[in-house]
């Protein structure tokens, strides 16, 4: 039944297409047109209105635009509830998110027209500023959602973060065993470095900074080796110790020339392990960093939107308090 197979393929292709649909293209960017229509309507009404010499929120058009903007803000904030209501059948969350982005953007022209482009040092402009901050952070959120997931996938290279952490734990165990075979001092260094390795760290800043402490261990091991050679009164070799910050390969070269006892083999494998760990740690830290970037804007967007809600209440009450 080639016809049926074709139709199934087409249906699958269609479903596949919709599954990977970007936030901005939900339902053929339906809400883009809704937002554009709403903005155009507001602009035309604003330009046509001749009821007052100085455009302001107190005319009938002003009240209409203000009510529209207020209802929009309340609805936009309902996304936080809708996305937690898994059982809700009131449209898809993706549709809500798409409408959230477009209608949130339409709030800019509507609010500006409501204000008649007038600003000052008052609670009304505070509301406007908070609104711009919330919308601006939302724009960054859209940018992050469109960009960072792809970066994360590439950085993880097929492995999950837990798998990478498991491998690091593995490497640590082996590194400790290897170091212990060489010298208790080396063991202490590796142990210390494990204890001090920070993957992600505590707090947003260290997550964003994306530093792990795994290079420090290698540097310290090199210092320990030099010290150990001195103690063992090894014949002086015309070999330059690699300067801090040089690569692992330089380190291995250095060891190869040092003509040490059998623990050279162990040392090499220890450094190999630490290099692997360093590579893994780098990926994890980058993964944590990307995750932080992906979530960061929400820490601005959500609290500020509640401040915005308070400012909205203050604005409406104040305006009618002194009508």
């Amino acid at each position, binding site marked *: 039944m080639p016809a049926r197979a074709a139709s199934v393929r087409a249906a699958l292709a269609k479903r596949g297409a919709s599954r990977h649909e970007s936030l901005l293209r939900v339902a053929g960017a339906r809400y883009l047109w809704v937002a554009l229509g709403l903005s155009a309507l507001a602009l035309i009404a604003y330009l046509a209105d001749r009821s007052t010499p100085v455009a302001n*929120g107190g005319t009938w058009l002003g009240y209409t635009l203000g009510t529209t903007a207020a209802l929009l803000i309340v609805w936009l904030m309902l996304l936080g509830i809708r996305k937690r209501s898994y059982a809700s059948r009131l449209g898809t969350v993706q549709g809500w998110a798409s409408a959230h982005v477009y209608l949130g953007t339409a709030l800019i022209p509507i609010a500006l027209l409501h204000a008649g482009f007038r600003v000052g040092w008052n609670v*009304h402009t505070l509301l406007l500023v908070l609104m711009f901050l919330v919308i601006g952070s939302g724009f960054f959120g859209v940018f992050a959602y469109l960009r960072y997931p792809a970066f994360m996938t590439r950085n993880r290279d097929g492995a999950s973060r837990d798998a990478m952490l498991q491998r690091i734990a593995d490497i640590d165990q082996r590194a400790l065993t290897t170091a212990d075979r060489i010298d208790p001092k080396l063991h202490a260094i590796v*142990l210390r470095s494990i204890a001090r390795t920070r993957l992600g760290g505590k707090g947003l800043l260290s997550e964003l900074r994306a530093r792990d402490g795994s290079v420090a261990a290698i540097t310290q091991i090199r210092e320990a080796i030099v010290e150990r050679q001195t103690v063992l009164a090894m014949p002086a070799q015309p070999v330059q110790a690699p300067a801090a910050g040089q690569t692992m390969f330089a380190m291995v070269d250095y060891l190869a020339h040092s003509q040490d006892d059998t623990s050279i083999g162990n040392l090499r494998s220890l450094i190999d392990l630490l290099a692997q760990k360093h590579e893994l740690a780098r990926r994890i830290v980058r993964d*944590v960093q990307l995750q932080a970037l992906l*979530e960061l804007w929400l820490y601005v967007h959500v609290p500020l939107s509640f*401040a915005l809600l*308070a400012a909205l209440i203050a604005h409406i009450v104040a305006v009618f308090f002194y*009508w």
Partner: protein
Amino acid sequence: MRWLLRRVIRKAGNEVNVADSTIDAEALTIGRATDQSICINDIRVAQRHARITVSGRGRYRVEALSAAGVRINGEVGQGATVAIGAVIEIGPVTLKPIKVSGYDAALEQTDSAPSIEFSTAASAGKHRPSKRLWAWVGFVAVLVFALLVPMAMHYQPALRVLPLPGTTAWSPGTLDAAHQGIAADCTRCHTQTFARTTEAGCHECHQSVHAHADAERFGLPALNMDRCGGCHEEHRGVHGLRFANATSLCSDCHRSLQDTTSGVSKLANASDFGRDHGEFRLQMPVVAADGQLQAETMQWNVDLIEHSGLKFNHQKHLVAGGLETPNGPRKLECINCHQIEPGGARMQPIAFERDCHDCHKLSFDPIEPEREVVHGRVAEVVYTLNGHYAKRALEGGYAQSSAPAPVQQRRRPGSPPLPVAQKQQALEWARDKARGVAESLFTGQACVTCHTVTAPTTENPDYVIAPVRVAGSWYSAALFNHLKHASMLCVDCHARAPQSASASDLLIPGIATCRTCHQSVVHKRGVVASDCTLCHVYHGSTTQAVTEKAAVSP
């Protein structure tokens, strides 16, 4: 020294086993080596990792023997003195000093999972600020400072001294310059909460406001609107109360005023100065039945005859080559006679003494040319002439051949008095002379030059000068100001003046002249945007008042 080591072993289902052991040692050693007091067989622990000694009552000294250090209360270090309750972490083991009687020292040992864990990595994203907390902080802070604090200050004026945002933080825009003085106290205008401002607040200060027009007479109940804010919107900037576009407010009614007032209004429809405004109606002086001048409103027309009661030839005075005057040649300009009054609105009336007298002397006696009669008072002129010639006649020495001898004859001091007959002859001459000179002044050479003079008749024995109107308000309903037009030349508007040979020429311009510069506010290049209030006053009714103190004629 007796140490108690209490090992806590957690089992599945919250079950906890406790195994106590006693160690006799000066110091407790911890490490992977078998000779250690606490032997921890874990690669994360050095052979000899740490040593714990008692440093005081309930106090312990922890020293790391390995460079890896010991984690004490979460901080990795080489040693520290700790008290009961501290957490000492070495590899998978956690040690806590506890208090147990009967022992010199006691430690509780808990083993964690044997694998190496990275709490930091696993908890990525968990050490974030709480969105919920900051949402509450933001919400409450804004609500308090933007709404509740100002509201409290409204109800409790004593709080207004606090350095916190007050009700002025609600002000949606700068107040008009006129209201800046009361800007700090919102309740001056906002007398009630949750209600629109009323006229009551305005009338506290604005006590003499005139109405626009009689609402009943014109059948326009909308004119009774007593809420000032309906038109005067505040918080619109320093010049906010000046209407940026009054035209639309006015033209709502005035566009079809004849219809809306059912023809009661005498005003023509107007909606736009540049395109929809009738020709000006001016206050023309006309001669009434009693011979006096009175103003009559009529539509401007270039052919209108002005009745100023004067004779004046502008052309003759403004002749290009200048005039021969008693003080030498002189070229006259408009401003030599027409001067703006101090307010700038109108021209000062022409004053004979200031504007004409330099050339037009009121001398009457060629023998004494410096002696003049007064201007403007007919009776006084006659009196002056009579007195002058009587004095001349009685003093004698008046060198005129037509005079009788006693008048011509010079009399010296100490001369005997004139005989009665000669006195009478002299005074008769004086009376005739005065009458003749008066006639000459009034109807021949002086007054009649500019004025219309009626000679004495049997009913009216006095000379009569026709009433004069040399200045006044031509457009009484308009706010014209000469000073504001000082950048213009006089002839830009009064174009016919230099060529006018007669005072009956109407030199006041009509609407077309104004429109060369002034157009409506609909922006047009090269014109002065002019709305209704540029020339007209809204609260201009002379018969209707808004507030009690406005003086009106019933």
